[in-house]
């Protein structure tokens, strides 16, 4: 069967996921195949995205954090998951001590954002990812992530700005980078908390990303950024399935 939840452009035709039918283990297998196919396609055209250095710092640092967390939980899985990404990342970048300074600035910027004022979503998401990288799941991070998850789950969109109260969004809602940043934040938060609410949202955000034209993703998402969020999501799903005794490898 074909994985049915990213077949249409989900920015144009959002999925509500209500009362979805049971389709057996083949649904999980079709999900994995769909994600792997998109990864293969994207890896074939990988590039160093020099236009978004901040994004690439977030990719490098997120990978390092998740590799460490997964390594502590399931070393075999971590080795398999990390090998390819690590090779590519290490070949592309040298350690840069300016990275931490950049992240610290972004984290500081998050502290100045208030839900009682107009919020620029890109600043919020950049600051949130930086803050999630810098510390363990802090309560302030969860409050912001809860707000974003609520907005995405209800509307299936992220808007350019949110007026005071953080309810109805304003401006463009087709900015791919916002959805990718949310995916990154969800990867980080779930890796630390194992709270299924955030894995649930991660799969939906990645459904949306993988429903979009490949060239659009390639243009705006930093190098290795899509590989990172998709590979991480796959690992989380497989680890969960394994923990619950669901054999998704049998046909």
């Amino acid at each position, binding site marked *: 069967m074909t994985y049915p939840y990213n077949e249409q452009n989900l920015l144009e035709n959002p999925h509500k996921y209500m009362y979805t039918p*049971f389709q057996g283990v083949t649904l999980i297998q079709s999900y994995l195949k769909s994600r792997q196919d998109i990864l293969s396609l994207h890896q074939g055209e990988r590039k160093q995205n020099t236009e978004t250095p901040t994004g690439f710092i977030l990719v490098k640092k997120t990978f390092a954090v998740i590799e460490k967390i997964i390594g502590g939980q399931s070393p075999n899985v971590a080795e398999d998951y990390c090998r390819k990404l690590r090779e590519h990342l290490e070949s592309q970048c040298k350690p840069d001590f300016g990275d931490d300074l950049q992240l610290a600035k972004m984290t500081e910027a998050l502290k100045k954002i208030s839900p009682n004022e107009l919020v620029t979503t890109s600043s919020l998401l950049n600051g949130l990812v930086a803050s999630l990288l810098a510390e363990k799941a802090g309560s302030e991070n969860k409050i912001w992530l809860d707000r974003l998850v609520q907005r995405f789950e209800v509307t299936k969109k992220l808007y350019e700005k949110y007026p005071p109260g953080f309810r109805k969004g304003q401006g463009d809602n087709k900015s791919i980078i916002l959805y990718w940043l949310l995916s990154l934040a969800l990867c980080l938060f779930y890796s630390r908390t194992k709270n299924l609410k955030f894995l*649930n949202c991660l799969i939906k955000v990645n459904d949306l990303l993988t429903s979009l034209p490949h060239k659009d993703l390639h243009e705006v998402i930093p190098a290795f950024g899509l590989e990172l969020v998709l590979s991480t999501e796959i690992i989380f799903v497989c680890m969960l399935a394994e*923990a619950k005794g669901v054999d998704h490898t049998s046909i």
Partner: protein
Amino acid sequence: MVAADTSRSKAYIQALIRNNLLPGFVLIIGNKSGVSMPGQVDSKESINDKLNDVAVQNGCWSEAYINLSESIQMSLESSSTPYEQLEVSNIHDPSVIDIIKNRTEYTFIYSGYGGIILRKELFQTGKQFLHVHGGYLPDYKGSTTNYYSIIVEDSIGASSLFLNEDIDDGPVLRRKKSPPPADRTQIDHIYDNAARAKVLVETLKTYEISGEWRIEKDANSQGETYFIIHPVLKHIAILAKTSATL
């Protein structure tokens, strides 16, 4: 009671009749739009409401005898329960509000279409709305939470509460956890409804005996609010073989 043409309302009404807890009046909000509403059984869905003996013998599924082919109207007529039907699916439609406002009953069992948050105009009728949430409160608020609780702790929950304007945030009257059913493919229309119907029956029986609404948990503002489960996680919950909690 406010009922909709859903498997949940059928489960509730059949359970109330079975337990001799007939409502004084039922307002049915219909759906003539031709588009299936949340909670309605899709004609393409495969529903097995013929339970096997093992499932029924287990006391926690005593309200799982749900005949989905029996209409709400048939159930109400066979039990001589007065009802009125409006061909509007919107609980906030002025005609619905008017009827509720003008009824003499103070407490309404709420069983409308899924995915709706009651707005202030309904609360401004001066009535209180008894709802049974499909999840153990306050831990599991929001939507489809029983799939989450199966994955996390191998259980299904239901909690009765008086609604307020926040999601699953009102005072909890009764809550219950049960092991998941043997056939997890029938959770959406059978077992989630059965778990809720059982808590509803127990809540009403307590009221019948004591003459008052006993609140089990007044402060209910903590907990996690979940959103509709993604099909991949739903499949993991259904196919899970281990009872180990995460």
